[in-house]
């Protein structure tokens, strides 16, 4: 009797465990279907078979449902064409979703009318049909899947170089951003979710090898989906790469990648923390002219960075620029008394590593003017004998820039984390990439710490202002 009872109990326990496991498996399969449907709906994944309109093939990236019907399937009006509301005003349901997908397959609306251009004809695979039906059944509800977001966690990616001269700086920025997220998580996270920073390392240069860079990033995102990228090491991207990121619905928040020019991305999709080289030079040119009176003729010494020369020329129009000319030691260096006003010496813009700028300082005399950017050469080293204009991305970085360069990038990483958290909180509990874009567009000023002001406008894409400061020389005040 006891044995029979024990056997019954064991069987019951097994059945309960098995049914729970079965339910879990079903739930996982449904979640995977919804995710696949989401990616098809938004155009992050292409339909496998050709999509046609009146027999004419459409590019695969123009066939996403959301392009015409809207992110929530709400429809709209463009060029006099009325695009219907997918749910026809009724709450989303499995039945409606099934009817919409059947309509797609038959080429007829749910009311039986033939679908006319511009509505394309889809030849869905069975898996695509199931995926779209699963997604449409929850579109616009709390159950709608959002890439990189679940009930407990919100994942943000950071693109950073795996190796190369910038890898250490990027790692320091990663530590700063991660530390900021951990601090927020200790306080309860955002809307009850923990923030998780995902490293997305690449070893391809997006400017010169856009194909491999895109493939590496796409692979990493497929393995670990994220809502957005923050503090990423993405500098100058060709226009197709910006378009690709936007098609992937990946907003870039507080980008850290040193850029030569302000990005050519659609407003709202990208915000940089640092001003570009071009913006830093243009923003400090007036300061340089106030003290270095013959600065219209400028000798320019550049690090071998692709596109740097063009960026300098674009930032300083109307000047005579002598690029990478030999810089002879100043004749006045040995004889001019310290403290003489610099109005007859050389004027040098040096965008070089710290050691080369240091050597240059030794060769310039009291009448020579030097112009440097901390993002190239830091703010340390000996003082020049003549005036030196140092350009920094922001006042907040000044105390750090003179010391450990890694500390500067860690500090910038923390700022990127603070701005990301602020924008995420503005985007709300039901966050979507588009609500983050809206938050980036409407964000004007944010002060994460006393004296550190981040400002964004529709035309200014970098949050930190340009700060130009004259390095003081004890012998040449």
């Amino acid at each position, binding site marked *: 009797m006891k044995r029979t009872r024990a056997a019954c109990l064991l069987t019951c326990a097994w059945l309960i465990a098995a049914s729970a496991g079965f339910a879990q498996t079903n739930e996982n399969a449904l979640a995977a279907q919804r995710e696949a449907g989401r990616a098809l709906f938004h155009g992050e994944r292409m339909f496998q078979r050709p999509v*046609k*309109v*009146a*027999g*004419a*093939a*459409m*590019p695969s*990236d*123009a066939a996403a449902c959301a*392009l*015409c019907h809207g992110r929530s399937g709400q429809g*709209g*009006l*463009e*060029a*006099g*064409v*009325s*695009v*219907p509301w997918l749910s026809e*005003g009724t709450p989303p349901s499995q039945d409606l979703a099934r009817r919409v997908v059947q309509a797609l397959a038959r080429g007829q609306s749910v009311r039986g009318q033939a679908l*006319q*251009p*511009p509505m*394309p004809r889809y030849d869905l695979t069975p898996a695509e049909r199931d995926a779209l039906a699963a997604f449409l059944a929850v579109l616009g509800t709390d159950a709608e899947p959002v890439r990189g977001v679940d009930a407990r966690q919100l994942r943000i990616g950071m693109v950073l170089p795996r190796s190369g001269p910038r890898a250490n700086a990027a790692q320091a920025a990663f530590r700063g951003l991660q530390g900021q997220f951990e601090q927020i998580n200790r306080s309860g996270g955002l809307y009850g979710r923990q923030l998780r920073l995902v490293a997305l390392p690449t070893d391809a240069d997006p400017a010169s090898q856009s194909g491999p860079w895109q493939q590496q990033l796409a692979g990493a995102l497929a393995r670990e989906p994220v809502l957005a990228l923050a503090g990423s090491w993405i500098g100058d991207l060709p*226009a*197709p790469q910006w*378009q690709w990121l936007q098609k992937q619905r990946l907003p870039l928040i507080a980008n850290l990648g040193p850029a030569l020019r302000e990005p050519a991305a659609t407003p709202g999709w990208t915000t940089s923390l640092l001003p570009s080289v071009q913006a830093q030079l243009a923003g400090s040119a007036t300061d340089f002219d106030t003290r270095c009176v013959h600065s219209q003729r400028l000798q320019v010494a550049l690090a071998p960075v692709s596109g740097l020369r063009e960026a300098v020329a674009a930032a300083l129009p109307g000047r005579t620029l002598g690029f990478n000319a030999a810089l002879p030691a100043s004749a006045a260096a040995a004889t001019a008394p310290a403290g003489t006003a610099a109005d007859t010496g050389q004027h040098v813009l040096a965008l070089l590593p710290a050691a080369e700028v240091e050597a240059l300082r030794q060769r310039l005399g009291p009448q020579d003017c030097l112009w440097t950017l901390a993002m190239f050469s830091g703010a340390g080293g000996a003082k020049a004998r003549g005036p030196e204009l140092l350009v920094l991305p922001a006042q907040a970085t000044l105390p750090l820039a003179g010391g450990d360069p890694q500390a500067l990038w860690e500090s910038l990483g923390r700022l990127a984390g603070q701005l990301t958290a602020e924008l995420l909180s503005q985007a709300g509990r039901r966050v979507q990439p588009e609500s983050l874009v809206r938050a980036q567009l409407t964000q004007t000023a944010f002060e994460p710490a006393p004296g550190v002001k981040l400002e964004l406008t529709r035309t200014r894409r970098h949050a930190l202002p340009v700060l130009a400061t004259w390095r003081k020389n004890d012998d040449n005040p």
Partner: protein
Amino acid sequence: MKLVEPMVRADRRRVLGWGRALPALACGAWLAPTMARPATAWLPAPNLPDATLQNHQGRDLRLLSDVMKDRVLLVHFFYTGCATVCPPQTALLRELRRRLDVQAPARNPLFVGLSVDPLGDGPAQLRAYLQRFDIQAGREAGWVWLTGHPTAMARVLRGFGVATAAPDQHPNLLWLGDTRRERWTRTASLQSPEQLAARLAEVMA
């Protein structure tokens, strides 16, 4: 609840019905004279300036003397950021272009695409759009894509009756014309390649 629900549904149908019908009616009213007009009743030629515009390679072209003079034309309007109407319209026109090239290369009309968003569409944007749709552009390929200075584009578009304040409200409309014989007509752009070919044949007859 049962009493109220049908009324709500009826109201919604009425509201939605008018919401859909009004733009359609407006569009239909605009197109109806053209669609119903016999092929012999042509529209007056659009009043166009010989403006200097840029093609997808950034080359300057004068609209009348370099592009439109003595040609049978199909003129369409687009912008590269358009997500709704332009992609299917471009796909349909590309298929029409392909069929025309196969059927009657000697009498091919010239397709002319005019950007309604000259601020956003430079030659680089045009090239990217053409690459996306795998389109060969140029006069020799029978399809010229043009953008230009906003003022010049506004004058040209005004000639075709296209307002430029809001690119996303550009008409889904084609102008078909023969500049030698001064015969012009308009038709909806979202038609099948067969229907569009028939309309072009009327102009070329």
